[in-house]
């Protein structure tokens, strides 16, 4: 016998399928690709520091504290838009490591002179190899890396005040809370 209870099953199935499809077809922006790196260690690299070609930076430089890793370049117009926001974030006590991506060294240094340099240090990725290992395909992009060097979050596009307050800061607070 079909009871009243079993009549609910198709309804439940239909609604869950509808919710699932609704979610998967309503991407914010189809150009945002999910990161393959989430919860994986930051890729290994050996690249020059932007300010000193003799100082070689590697993944160990990211250990110790939760930090933002920001991919930027002078050819990236939007990087200039997020620059004041990043400056405020750095003043608030969150370390930001820059990856200067496919850029001209002189132009990059002039840019930092002109607009200020809130970054802890910059990695010079002038061939884009680290960017490829990170799955980066444009700039700006911003990663949150925890104190053990694990990638925890990826934001593609400009870090605005809202993105900072609603997306990045909660993740940082969570990570800092967990490690305390």
């Amino acid at each position: 016998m079909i009871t009243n209870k079993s009549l609910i099953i198709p309804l439940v199935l239909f609604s869950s399928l509808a919710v699932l499809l609704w979610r998967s077809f309503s991407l914010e922006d189809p150009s945002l690709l999910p990161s393959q790196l989430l919860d994986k260690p930051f890729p290994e690299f050996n690249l020059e520091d932007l300010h000193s070609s003799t100082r070689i930076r590697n993944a160990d430089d990211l250990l110790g504290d939760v930090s933002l890793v920001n991919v930027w370049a002078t050819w990236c117009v939007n990087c200039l838009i997020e620059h004041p926001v990043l400056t405020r974030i750095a003043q608030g006590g969150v370390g930001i490591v820059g990856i200067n991506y496919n850029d001209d060294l002189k132009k990059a240094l002039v840019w930092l002179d002109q607009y200020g340099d809130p970054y802890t240090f910059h990695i010079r990725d002038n061939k884009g190899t680290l960017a490829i290992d990170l799955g980066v395909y444009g700039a700006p992009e911003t990663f949150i890396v925890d104190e053990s060097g694990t990638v925890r979050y990826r934001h593609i596009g400009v870090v605005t005040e809202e993105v900072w307050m609603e997306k990045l800061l909660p993740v940082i607070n969570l990570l800092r809370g967990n490690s305390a």
Partner: protein
Amino acid sequence: MRNVTYGCIFLLFMPVGMASIDAHDFPDDDMQLRHQALIAELRCPQCLNTNLAGSDAMIARDLRREVRRLLLDGKSDEEVLSFMYDRYGDFVLYTPRIHIGTILLWFGPLLFFLAALAVFVGIIKNRRESTPKEVDREELAAILNAHAKELD
């Protein structure tokens, strides 16, 4: 960003011979052909639906160079595709890999069909079982008699 997109769209309409912008040297023709096949098979992560071969986006140029480097390192085609998959995910491959997500996507509808079929068969069976069976006439007569006596 927008310029890059327009650039990609523009490139779509260019003759195929002109699509590959940068000339790479390869030690042999075979590797050159593999390079061409791979960059045709990998999607440019920045342009929505253009392959690496047909895009002038910076990332497409870098990835073409990376494919070349991997081939010169002696990597197999499969290893090159895995390298890209590990970094850029499903999006980068024109032929997606089989994993839990794609299995659900491709075979999910079949599962739903089978479930529906099972329910349908179940309903039919239930109907059959609840239809009256052969009537035992003697038993029926006995019941009716007993009932008639009560009424008398």
